[in-house]
């Protein structure tokens, strides 16, 4: 496993943390993320498992993470990149990982992240006629929205 860690370390601008056996975290700058992913694919991380976002609202940042898998070394590496929450723009990874396409559509819808280069990101995907904040953002209050839009039965004797 350490061999692959060294290989990742050789990629420009990466900060590698080994969490435990077979789990690596790679932190990169926003500008370098596509390059890093490309290099990662070259060294064997051929499968994109998850691509999603963590809303770091306290830091006013979005953390975008790509969980990659190296089939030969049997190692999972998570590439993490922090982007500005007020202007969340990220370049698409669909050219490198075709499966990123759908994940990017999802994060565009659920977090309002703009994905440059992905034509379908931003079009309705899971939601339909949604006209509120992107729902997975931390500042979207699901319970408030529910009580505004739906009516609970026996709501008089519940404290919700």
């Amino acid at each position, binding site marked *: 496993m350490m061999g692959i860690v060294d290989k990742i370390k050789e990629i420009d601008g990466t900060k590698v943390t080994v969490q435990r056996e077979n789990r690596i975290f790679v932190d990169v700058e926003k500008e370098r993320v596509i390059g890093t992913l490309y290099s990662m694919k070259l060294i064997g991380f051929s499968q994109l498992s998850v691509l999603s976002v963590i809303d770091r609202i306290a830091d006013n940042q979005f953390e975008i993470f790509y969980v990659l898998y190296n089939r030969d070394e049997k190692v999972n590496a998570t590439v993490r990149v922090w982007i500005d929450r007020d202007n969340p723009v990220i370049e698409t990874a669909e050219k490198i990982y075709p499966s990123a396409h759908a994940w990017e559509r999802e994060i565009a819808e659920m977090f309002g992240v703009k994905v440059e280069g992905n034509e379908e990101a931003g079009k309705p995907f899971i*939601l339909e006629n949604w006209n*509120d904040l992107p729902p997975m953002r931390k500042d979207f209050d699901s319970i408030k929205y529910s009580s505004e*839009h*739906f*009516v609970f039965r026996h709501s008089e004797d519940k404290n919700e």
Partner: protein
Amino acid sequence: MEKMTQDQVRTIANMLRKRSLWMIHYCTGCGAMELPPTMTSRYDMSRLGLAPFVTSRQADILLITGYLNVKTLRRVITVYEQMLDPKYVIGFGSCALNGGVYWDSYAVIKQLDRYIPADLYIAGCMPRPEAIITAFQDLMDLIDSGKADGYKRYKRDLAYYKENQRKVLG
């Protein structure tokens, strides 16, 4: 006299209706997971004259199998309106009653009967096949006694239902 015959016709019709209930094959939620066992050889609900049918035009019962997402609700309403009278709706499990485990979700409606009239509810999350079969039998009793009149209510209170539907569907 004419009234008598009408009543008799209705009684006979209800008797026949309850013996042949076709449910539409539409899995709206996870409660549909207990339908295959109910439909197939282990519980075999066809013993009661029930059969899964494919299109809304042919079906008599609409099963709301659990939660209803807003996006699904739109289709369910269409399906319900396409079905021919008399038609019946069974709400499965907690979610159809009051949102169930998704009570705080922004995507799931909380009360089925605000949007389409439900004739019967089954408790459980999800109701097991025995409960589903019991529910079908209860529905048959309701049909027999003429109490399963959701489709009449829908026609009568259409404005109410449409208003509620418009509120969530926009």
